[in-house]
């Protein structure tokens, strides 16, 4: 049984069909690429899968459980977490605090807990900080843990954004152009984090990227969208030679991100 099974996903904004009868599945431990020209509906699909939008029609199953229509935070608690391209970190917090918030699902601080400053509460706080540090070690950001997140170089901020998603210990990770705007060193660190996390936790990962070469190199399977519809799906080999895919990209500026 696939980890994520989304069938017949359509999303209409008024009369505009952003997504039309799209089927997606992701297996455990699989890295699936999602490509398509600008405006194809890639981000919309991620928004629907993560619960940010409810689909106009269609069903989403996570590990066989129906999560269709659940809100963003509910879907996150069930195990699907996404990364962002805008507002992807808490700029005023320290790097460590960012990772602590990422782990929220396991913390769920209550209102009254902090009022009675018990020893148990303080123990929990130390534990959360330790867990957060572990994720930062994983991502290579531990040396910066006490720095204000907004002060990091842009590429490291993006990496922190992904570390936050990883902190949530999801079953499925939806990454929206994770390496856009990064230099080669940062790209390497990010892809290494993704690879490690996928291997150790057997996450299913859906990766949106414009850097087609990177997708071809790393993904086992690729889904291609255009105008809200799935126009191709298969191995990098198959997709790379697919007529419909080539047509979709012709006339589009092919830019390496």
């Amino acid at each position, binding site marked *: 049984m696939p980890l994520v099974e989304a069938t017949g996903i359509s999303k209409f904004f008024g009369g505009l069909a952003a997504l039309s009868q799209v089927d997606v599945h992701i297996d455990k431990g699989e890295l699936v690429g999602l490509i398509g020209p600008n405006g194809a509906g890639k981000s919309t699909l991620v928004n629907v899968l*993560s619960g*940010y939008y409810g689909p106009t029609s269609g069903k989403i199953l996570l590990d066989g459980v129906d999560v269709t229509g659940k*809100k*963003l*935070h509910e879907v*996150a*608690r069930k195990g699907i*977490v*996404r990364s*962002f391209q805008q*507002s*992807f*970190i*808490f*700029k*005023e*917090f*320290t790097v460590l*605090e960012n990772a*602590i*918030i*990422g*782990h*929220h*699902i396991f*913390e769920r*601080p*209550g*209102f009254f*807990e*902090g*009022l009675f*400053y018990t020893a148990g509460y303080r123990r*929990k*706080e130390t534990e*959360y900080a330790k867990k957060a540090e572990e994720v930062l070690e994983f991502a290579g950001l531990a040396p910066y843990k006490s720095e*204000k997140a907004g002060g990091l170089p842009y590429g490291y901020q993006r990496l922190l*954004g992904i570390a*936050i*998603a990883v*902190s*949530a210990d999801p079953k499925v990770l939806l990454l929206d152009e994770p390496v856009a705007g990064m230099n080669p060193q940062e790209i390497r660190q990010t892809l290494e984090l993704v690879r490690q996390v996928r291997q150790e936790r057997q996450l299913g990962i859906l990766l949106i990227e414009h850097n087609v070469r990177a997708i071809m190199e790393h993904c086992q399977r690729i889904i291609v969208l255009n105008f809200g519809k799935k126009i191709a799906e298969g191995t990098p080999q198959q997709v790379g030679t697919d007529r419909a895919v080539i047509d979709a990209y012709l006339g589009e500026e092919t830019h390496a991100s």
Partner: protein
Amino acid sequence: MFTKAKHKALFLGAVVILLVLFPWITGNPYFLRIGISMFIYTPLALGVALLARSGQLTFAQYAFLGIGSYTVAIITTRFGWNWWLCLPLAGVVGGIMAVIVGYPALRIKGPYFAILTFGVNEILRLVITEWESLTGGSRGIGNIPPPSPLGGWQFGSMRSYYHLGLGLMLVSSLIVYLVHKSHFGLTLASTGQADTLSESVGVNVRAYKLKTFVAISVLAAVMGGFFAPLQQYISPLDFQIWESFTLVVFCVVGGMSSFVGPIYGILVLTIIPVVLQYVPGYDPVLEPLFYGTLVLLIVILYPGGIAVFLQGLGGRKINRT
């Protein structure tokens, strides 16, 4: 200002002792009343600042002050209940109203939410004015009795209200401080900085906002329960929108980046008009001019408020919001 925790604690202790002794340093009831006003403003303004960490600015605090005041006024004058029992009841009523108002209202963000809270304030005022059988309408409620004696303490003098107000202020400010510093407070602040990001890692943003809104409204209502016997006579005129607006001004002038910011705002904006009265040739008509000029200066030169200005003096980096 102070970096070592121990220095902070000592300073705070000294301030509290001074505040307690103040009525014996000067028995002038006029000054005591000003102090009491500051005691009322403090938890209300701190509440505004706390909720503001989630990105929601409320102009409804005085509405909840009014709810608390009217609850106590009605129950002590009509049913003769002991004030000490009425006070928690005021908090409960405030809490219930906060849930009713907050549940739908907190779905809305930014300036629209702020405007909505203006409306809440006004709706409450109208309800109080129209529901004459319960609230006495625009005539208000008078002859509100002072708190009954408790453990040897008598109430009724300005000094007794001063100490009672001081106690309430310290307890409610402590509560807001603990929430601010706690993990709950950090999570709340995350919703204000990047709410979608916060929600994407499982934070129930609406629940955090609602819990905070209810908490600060309960504190406001409890202060309202204190306000009623202090004033002895309350009417809808005591709870106008302008007062809630003043709270926000305290927060903006004092700065919301640190917990104590609003307190600086209260100190500066309350004490300056009093000091100005002693300047020879000063006409009280000029007060809005000074007030307004100060606010303008702060907003233009130090948008972070006095708190940021002071932190800049100390050369410290501004850390957590």
